[in-house]
């Protein structure tokens, strides 16, 4: 039997005006196990806390109930006070007789009766409280960034600058990501490469950053502060230490039929290649599917011309295992496949996705920056942009969400075209123009007002390739007329989606993805850069469509969260976690399937059930991952799984007390 003390607060007149505090004190003394009860004007004050401390010592209290304001207000205060005098903080409960009693009930009798009842429930609960101890877990002072685009690079630089080691894993041969493919950026029209390249170099040369390019995450184990990650470094066939980046190999390579990923397939690259001229690292990779040496055994020209002897046809994939305290997912996006959007004639050479158009307008791109039709090399007299291709489309072929970046990059494209070639007729077919960023609407209006881009409200219905020109059919909804228009080039603002690799990465991290495949944040308002899995953070478009400024801002926020984590020497864990009674657990896995955090695993363990020993499949809670929601405790039919601090018995005791 516990020795319980009850402390009732007046909160000035906040409580005392509506509740007969003395009555509560007197009634509390009649409760089972209550050996002391008292009142005080302000229990949260220094004097009030001292009163509690003295009573605990004097009356040898083993449980404390404070009837006062909401526990959301002062539970932490009182629990700290309890800890100071050597009482386990979880042996203290609060009864909320202010927010949920005195402030709302005008009838003093009713309010007093309720305050007595709430106090008795807290007493009933505290009898079943057990001391709980926050666990501790170590923090490895190293972060892993998955994805080497602008999001990943930004996080890595911020974390590395603060003095922690960071590894970047990038699946392609070089870092830079989508931003490296862009020509100009909105809404300032500054050159994408000019602002990105220095960041890439910073990342590559930073003492605290290790790049794993042409690499993938193979497996993840562990939890916040203590992840163990295995990285597969795919065989590059080029020794990174020996290569000087002279480029002789790819100059001489005779296999030149591989479509260039970087150029969106608009031009070809060699079998040995660097993705683009400013690639970081400037070390080529051999595409073994395309390489003549790998296909036929003959050739080896690159090996012959490589002075430092860096070519290594025998190279194998290498597995690297490393410990990390935090993981940042920054896997980015890709445009959707347009195969199912036949009405826009996506197979036509003169119908481009926006990303392809970026490459066409880029001076380093497949046309060396010349704006020409890819079918016949002619300069177009008219260019048409179609918005929302696959975005805001709830049918199975589309994406229900707004891809967010298209309105602005289309304004950018339209403006760039007009700026260079004022004679080209530029039309934009839109459903809505969305421009809520800083300087965004001004930017879009400039395209229309200063540059004379025609904005037509109405989705295009069909595009037909007539050979030497294209014809489109649309409806101008504001003019209420149908349009059949001739044009020379069409650019489709293609919806963007997360990379296919996001899903397996999320499942390795036990982080969740939404119905669209984007990573889910822990809370849409209050934890926007954290994943629901502790220690896993999000940056960039893997979490949802984002433009560059937003991506960098999110990367910064994620970095701050990572630094907050890595700066701790150890982590204290929430003691109100689930725990399984091994004598009752059936090993049925129901709890495992409802756990939002992947905190429950199963292990075969020997148990001793009243002298009977046997191996059993039993649930095991990883207390570092468990957040204490209790979903498992309810799904468990035998009641083996329970939640510390909110156990079945504790809640039932409260119910009993309140229904007396």
């Amino acid at each position: 039997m516990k020795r319980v003390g009850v402390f009732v607060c007046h909160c000035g007149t906040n409580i005392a005006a509506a509740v007969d505090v003395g009555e509560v004190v007197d009634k509390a003394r009649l409760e089972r196990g209550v050996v002391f009860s008292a009142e005080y004007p302000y229990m949260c004050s220094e004097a009030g806390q001292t009163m509690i401390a003295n009573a605990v010592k004097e009356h040898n209290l083993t449980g404390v109930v404070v009837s006062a304001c909401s526990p959301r207000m002062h539970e932490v205060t009182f629990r700290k006070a309890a800890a100071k005098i050597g009482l386990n903080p979880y042996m203290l409960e609060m009864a909320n007789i202010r927010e949920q009693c005195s402030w709302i009930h005008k009838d003093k009798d009713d309010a007093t009766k309720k305050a007595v009842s709430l106090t008795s429930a807290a007493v009933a609960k505290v009898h079943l409280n057990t001391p709980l101890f926050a666990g501790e877990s170590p923090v490895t002072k190293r972060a892993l960034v998955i994805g080497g685009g602008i999001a990943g690079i930004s996080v890595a630089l911020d974390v590395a600058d603060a003095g922690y080691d960071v590894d970047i894993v990038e699946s392609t041969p070089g870092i830079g990501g989508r931003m490296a493919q862009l020509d100009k950026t909105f809404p300032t029209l500054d050159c994408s490469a000019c602002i990105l390249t220095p960041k890439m170099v910073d990342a590559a040369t930073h003492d605290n950053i290790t790049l794993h390019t042409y690499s993938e995450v193979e497996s993840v184990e562990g939890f916040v502060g203590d992840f163990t990650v295995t990285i597969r470094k795919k065989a590059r066939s080029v020794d990174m230490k020996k290569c000087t980046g002279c480029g002789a190999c790819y100059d001489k390579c005779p296999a030149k039929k591989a479509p260039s990923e970087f150029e969106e397939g608009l031009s070809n690259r060699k079998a040995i290649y660097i993705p683009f001229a400013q690639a970081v690292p400037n070390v080529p990779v051999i595409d073994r599917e395309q390489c003549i040496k790998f296909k036929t055994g003959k050739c080896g020209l690159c090996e012959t011309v490589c002075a430092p002897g860096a070519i290594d046809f025998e190279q194998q994939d290498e597995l690297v295992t490393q410990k990390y305290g935090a993981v940042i997912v920054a896997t980015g996006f890709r445009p959707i496949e347009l195969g199912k959007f036949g009405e826009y004639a996506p197979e036509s050479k003169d119908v481009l996705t926006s990303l392809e158009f970026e490459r066409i307008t880029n001076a380093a791109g497949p046309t060396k920056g010349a704006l020409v039709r890819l079918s016949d090399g002619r300069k177009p007299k008219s260019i048409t942009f179609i918005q929302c291709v696959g975005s805001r489309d709830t049918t199975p072929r589309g994406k229900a969400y707004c891809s967010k970046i298209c309105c602005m990059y289309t304004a950018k494209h339209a403006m760039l075209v007009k700026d260079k070639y004022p004679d080209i007729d530029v039309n934009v077919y839109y459903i809505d123009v969305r421009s809520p960023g800083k300087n965004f609407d001004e930017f879009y209006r400039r395209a229309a007002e200063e540059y004379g881009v025609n904005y037509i409200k109405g989705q295009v219905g069909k595009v037909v390739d007539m050979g030497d020109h294209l014809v489109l059919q649309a409806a101008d909804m504001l003019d209420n007329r149908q349009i059949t228009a001739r044009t020379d080039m069409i650019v489709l603002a293609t919806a963007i989606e997360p990379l296919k690799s996001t899903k397996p990465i999320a499942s390795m991290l036990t982080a969740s993805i939404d119905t669209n495949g984007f990573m889910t944040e822990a809370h849409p308002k209050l934890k926007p850069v954290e994943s629901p899995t502790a220690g896993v953070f999000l940056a960039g478009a893997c979490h949802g469509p984002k433009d560059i400024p937003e991506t960098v801002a999110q990367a910064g926020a994620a970095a701050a969260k990572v630094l907050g984590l890595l700066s701790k020497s150890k982590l204290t864990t929430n003691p109100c976690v689930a725990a399984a009674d091994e004598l009752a657990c059936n090993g049925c896995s129901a709890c495992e399937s409802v756990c939002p955090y992947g905190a429950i695993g199963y292990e075969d363990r020997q148990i001793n059930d009243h002298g009977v020993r046997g191996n059993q499949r039993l649930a095991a809670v990883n207390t570092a991952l468990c957040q204490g929601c209790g979903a498992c405790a309810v799904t468990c039919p035998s009641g083996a799984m329970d939640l510390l601090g909110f156990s079945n018995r504790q809640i039932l005791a409260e119910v009993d007390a309140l229904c007396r």
Partner: protein
Amino acid sequence: MQEQLRILAGKMLADGRAARVLGWKRTDFETAPEPSFFTAQDDLSELVYNKYCAANLSGFMIGAGKRDGVTVVFLKPCDTYSFNQLVKEHQIDRAKAYVVGVSCGGNAKVEEMEDVGWLERCLVCTKHDHVVYDELVLDESLSRPEAQDRFGGVTRLEGLQSLERYEFWQGELSTCIRCNACRNVCPACNCKKCVFDSAKYDTAAKANVTTFEEQLFHIIRAYHVAGRCTDCGECARVCPQDIKLQLLNRKIIKDINELYGEFQAGQDTETLGPLTAFNADTDAEPSIVHTRG
């Protein structure tokens, strides 16, 4: 068929592929064969298979899996769902079971050792095919009783007034003697320690003292097997008071089917049960209970 099963069992025991055979054993009463493990070939003459072999043997496979060697088990189509469900819940070691699917033409309802027609569950049977087996022993000549609407009883009760339903259940449950037969026979009720035997919840009780306890026991039991109950009908079959327990389980199954899409527990060993899954966008709010019908 009985002969085929004996031969099959005999071979399996003889060549050591199986350590034991789980089947139905003859008793003094033809209408009451009982589940039994056979380990010796000589005993197989006692193995029977007929319309009185109603017992679902799946539940016994939990214990069998903890013993050495393979156990041959005879399962009717409906029993295989229980078996699968138990595999899904890691209660049965699939590798240590050799499932012989046997044809079923329905089981007889036995009252005072007399055959009085078909078991209710057989009249509404929807589980005609084995969902798991290593081998099938089929008898095409067996024909099932004509099928009735499985949810007919639930629907009729739903159509009554609230008070009428209450009175119906009072009538049913007040006869409960808390013999625990329903719980003991139920393959899903395999908890090592039932909450009703646990001192932790103030729910342990040998006999019902008030009407509430009957309700509590049967509500919680139905709820604990929700989404896991294959509707094998064993609980109703063994109830000495003939309480229509199947109605509780079927009510939940019907709700699940209507609200979350058709679901049959034990159909496979992977699909998440309806209470351990959700659909964020389409799930009904609990208020649907207040607004419908």
